[in-house]
């Protein structure tokens, strides 16, 4: 079991009068660099603090042109974390491979982060969310093909001595020879997040990597997806280990259940009703029609469409309560879902700095140790051997 803190770095200042989506066409005139200065530095403080609090690692991710998450370049953030921390894992979940031209750039930047951190990077690779294809001009109907070719190329970068030639359908390179190369051998661990498309789960199972379940769905959607993933691994001839699965979930801990709800609820709704709208846009060809229909069908079970607090609790869209409540609920869900990685979103939407800090501290002191005991893991057993500085 590993426990990560996930950050989205949201924009909490959308004007009340704005009722449109937070993605693609949300006017960037709403952004204010001076507020951004405060936010980025505050969010970085929160992530860095996770190390002292005893998390196994932190996670950042990549999104463009939206108010939901302001990390179009997660590698910049990861580089800062690499320098400002010494022990914990830094998971970039992940670089949207088709958006990097050539994909060798991902191999280069990830190798830099891995070197600077002493071998602590987790290399997440994603196709890129549907909205990114509206913002970036790339053809969504080619997204998965490009992703697959880019991924193979990146792996060659890390496992095959350069210079070598890559003549693929989408990328044609005469001299592939990236400097630097990563610390971790054969390469940093690879995580692939997914929202339930069959293609992604089959693919991750085949490669024996880890599948991170994309959040904001009813818990039974997670369960269905993880069950499918386990089945996909069986079809590949092996049994999935829990470490190959990750559960991303907003968590809020306060002194009592009532206090937790009162403190967290308005910020959850800002997130669900102001930042999620537009996230589910799925451009043509982005996924197969079979998967698209499956995912569209799941929208009744998506946080954007949830209306009441009772539904939030029943569906485990967020785990909110006193330390005892959160302990119990998380332990139960970890067991039921069969996951080996818990990625908790301890800051969400408009949740301010003081409440974020309190949440992190209560989670770290009251929940994390219990969950470690329950699952028989310790910080020491999870520690990454840092590279000796020559």
């Amino acid at each position, binding site marked *: 079991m590993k426990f990560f803190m996930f950050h989205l770095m949201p924009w909490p200042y959308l004007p009340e009068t704005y009722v449109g989506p937070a993605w*693609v066409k949300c006017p960037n005139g709403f952004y204010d660099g001076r507020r951004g200065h405060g936010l980025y530095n505050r969010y970085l403080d929160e992530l860095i603090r996770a190390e002292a609090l005893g998390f196994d690692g932190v996670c950042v991710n990549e999104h463009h042109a939206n108010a939901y998450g302001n990390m179009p370049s997660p590698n910049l953030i990861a580089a800062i974390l690499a320098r400002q921390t010494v022990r914990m894992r830094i998971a970039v979940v992940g670089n949207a491979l088709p958006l990097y031209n050539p994909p060798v750039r991902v191999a280069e930047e990830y190798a830099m982060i891995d070197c600077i951190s002493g071998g602590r990077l987790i290399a997440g690779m994603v196709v890129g969310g549907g909205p990114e294809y509206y913002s970036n001009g790339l053809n969504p109907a080619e997204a998965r093909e490009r992703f697959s070719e880019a991924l193979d190329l990146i792996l060659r970068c890390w496992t095959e001595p350069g210079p070598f030639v890559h003549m693929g359908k989408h990328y044609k390179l005469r001299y592939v020879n990236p400097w630097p190369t990563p610390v971790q051998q054969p390469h940093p661990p690879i995580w692939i997040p997914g929202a339930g498309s069959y293609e992604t789960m089959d693919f991750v199972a085949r490669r024996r990597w880890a599948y991170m379940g994309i959040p904001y769905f009813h818990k039974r959607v997670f369960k269905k997806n993880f069950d499918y993933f386990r089945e996909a691994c069986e079809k590949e001839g092996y049994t999935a280990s829990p470490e190959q699965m990750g559960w991303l979930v907003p968590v809020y801990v306060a002194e009592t259940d009532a206090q937790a709800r009162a403190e967290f609820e308005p910020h959850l709704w800002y997130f669900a009703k102001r930042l999620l709208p537009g996230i589910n846009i799925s451009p043509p060809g982005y996924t197969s029609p079979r998967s698209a229909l499956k995912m569209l069908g799941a929208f009744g079970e998506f946080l954007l469409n949830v209306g009441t607090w009772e539904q939030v609790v029943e569906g485990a869209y967020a785990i909110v309560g006193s330390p005892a409540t959160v302990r119990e609920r998380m332990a139960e869900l970890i067991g039921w879902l069969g996951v080996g990685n818990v990625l908790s979103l301890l800051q969400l939407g408009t949740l301010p700095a003081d409440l974020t800090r309190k949440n992190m501290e209560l989670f770290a002191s009251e929940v994390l140790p219990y969950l470690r005991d329950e699952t028989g893991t310790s910080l020491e057993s999870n520690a990454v051997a840092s590279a000796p500085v020559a």
Partner: protein
Amino acid sequence: MPERRTVRVAGKEVRLLVGGGGPPLLYLHSVGADAEWLEAHDRLASRFTVHLPAHPGFAESTGVDQVDGIFDLVLHYVDLLGVLGLGAVPVVGASFGGWIAAELAALYPERIARLVLADAVGLWIDEAPIGELFGSTPPEVAQMIFHDQEHPLAQMLRAMTSIADVPEDFAYAQLRALEAAAKVGWNPYLHDPKLEGRLRRVTAPTLVLWGREDGLVPLVYGERYRERIPGARLHVIERCGHLPAIERPAEFAEAVLGFLAQT
């Protein structure tokens, strides 16, 4: 009325509908309902043997994975004409099919006897960008492509305000159709930057047909096609949106048949 055939073209399977009598005519459909046999096709079939192939990725036609751009579709149709043993034929292209037809006529002028472009995409005018097809909801699409909002198809699209309202087979067909269109028309958006400069190569007598109220591809595109294709005529259908074959089949067929009957 139409006969349904499956034709193999360079490893792809083409679902071909053929109906009517008289000289052959090739109809290249849009991203909409005219991939299936409609009243407009019946009317054209009164004077021509109408050949209505479904583009790769539409209906039961396969091979969309082999299509990476408009030129792949152009060659596909050159190949299809060869497989069918057809010499120079009249080609009627609607919207997306009109783009293919324009390219065919420009790149393979000897294969095209006469050309009809109905509300064809394929060009780009900065001052009048083509409307958003891929990112729009069905109600938004209805608003853009129909003048008559009470047309049954417009009403059907307007009713689809959530996925629960959409019959699954329709949703599936639409997703496939949009994917097939996106393979060719995502970026550059529904056009070929080189086409405008190549239209001078068209030798076929050409009718440009346009619904005046086309909210997806404004009339100015029809005018541009007419300007660039040597000898082309423009006929505007009043009180009509983007798909005259669907919205005003009688006027559509009359204009096309009238044009094709001229010597």
